């Protein structure tokens, strides 16, 4: 097994009395493509947000290359610059053009020169097919285009891991395809990805490991070939049968 990048250990999260995550243990290794599936409210997105420290866990810890990420702003910033995140609602900066979106953080966080930042931005925008739109503002793009720009923006940081939080859930069916294609292509580059998704076919075809979450627990963690054809947990079976029936 290759090196562990992120290790989530005994992580729990509650919002008030409501326990969203219960004692989660997950290791993310270099090169893995992990898809997290499960019904709404099972804690998938919260888990991803805890990994990125956008939510503070109630207990347990998140380790990055064996080092615990503490709740110190500086450490968190440093860590986040190496762990990219793509959101369901894109979160492109509305006051900036596509190009500025892709250059801001490489300039202000990684302190790249203008030329370097520009080259990176163009390279990754080409990768997602959005280079012709460098001068557009987010409001002028379709959902699928926005998400592709958001992916390019994250790639500009050269992240060690890229987290996707339901990247296609806010898109209409026609646009889902263009974003999934970009992600499939990324998967072939060896980039480590953790993807929360409702796209079962995508999870089955692209992931190297699929995690099924249920009521805040990791119910099953297996290669997709096993999880989708021969699930061990009855809850997984129930969930998948509903998807296959639908």
């Amino acid at each position, binding site marked *: 097994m290759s090196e562990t990048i992120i290790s989530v250990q005994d992580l729990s999260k509650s919002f008030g009395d409501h326990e969203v995550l219960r004692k989660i243990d997950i290791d993310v290794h270099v090169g893995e493509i992990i898809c997290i599936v499960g019904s709404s409210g099972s804690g998938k997105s919260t888990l991803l947000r805890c990994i990125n420290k956008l939510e*503070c866990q109630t207990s347990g810890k998140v380790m990055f290359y064996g080092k615990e990420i503490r709740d110190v702003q500086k450490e968190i910033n440093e860590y*986040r610059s190496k762990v990219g*995140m793509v959101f369901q609602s894109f979160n492109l900066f509305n006051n900036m053009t596509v190009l500025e979106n892709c250059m*801001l953080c490489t300039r*202000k*966080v990684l302190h790249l020169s203008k030329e370097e930042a520009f080259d990176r931005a163009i390279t990754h925008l080409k990768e997602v097919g959005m280079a*012709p739109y460098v001068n557009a503002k987010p409001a002028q793009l379709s959902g699928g285009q926005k998400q592709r720009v958001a992916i390019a923006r994250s790639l500009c940081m050269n992240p060690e891991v890229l987290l996707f939080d339901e990247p296609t859930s806010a898109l209409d069916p026609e646009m889902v395809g263009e974003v999934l294609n970009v992600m499939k292509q990324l998967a072939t580059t060896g980039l480590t990805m953790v993807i929360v998704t409702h796209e079962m076919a995508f999870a089955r075809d692209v992931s190297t490991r699929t995690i099924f979450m249920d009521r805040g627990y990791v119910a099953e963690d297996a290669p997709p070939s096993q999880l989708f054809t021969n699930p061990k947990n009855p809850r997984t079976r129930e969930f998948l049968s509903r998807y296959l029936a639908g």
Partner: protein
Amino acid sequence: MLSMFIKSDPQNPVEWMLFLADKYSGMFWEGTKLTLFIAVLGTILGFVLGYVIGVIQDAKISPGDHLIKKVLLRLVKILAAVYVEIFRDTPMIVQAMIIYFGIREANIDITPVSAGVLVTVLNTGAYMAETVRAGIGSIDLGQREGAWAMGMSPMKTMIYIVLPQAFKNIIPEMANTFLTNLKMTSVLNVIAVQELFMAAKTVGGNYYKYFESYLVIAVIYFVLCFFFNKVFIFLEKKMQGKSDYALAVEYMDND
């Protein structure tokens, strides 16, 4: 050109207005300049103060912060809240008196004009702080999370992402504040600032023609506000930016 309408023995209010405006044009001009000076300087500095206070009020204390930072931030936040509350809950005319005489009481020499600017700044700052806070609140949290997720510090996120967007949203309110200030400088006559209101009071007293004298400055205030209002509307339209964009055709073949 106007001189042909000006009579040496004015009979009706209009003739008196023209007579006074002509005879004391110097005083009215000086008053206008001072009014503009205090309003512009006071508003700009007040905006700066308002932004600083607004950002402080928005700052969150995170559990992982150093104890000293936690205590300091809490203290600054309390001070900011007290300041905003005091200045929003008392009339500017009373603030002017208390600040001017308070500073003099402390044996510090301050000119009425400086005190006037100070009062305007503090008053504007308090109102702007609330406006800025609301402006920041109007920006979707996702905008910040997008920046945080790439390692931007909360401060940089505020400067590059949130404030530029909040600024755009609160331009109308900022224009409003400036127009209010332009008119509110009139209360500074109570601390003997020689602005427009004071000029009218003095001029009116010379001939016992208060009605006509105040009409003159009413016209001046109106013209000033009308003019600035149009300027702000123009600026706001400019800020909206283009609705289209140019495709970068040089990258087209890669699509």
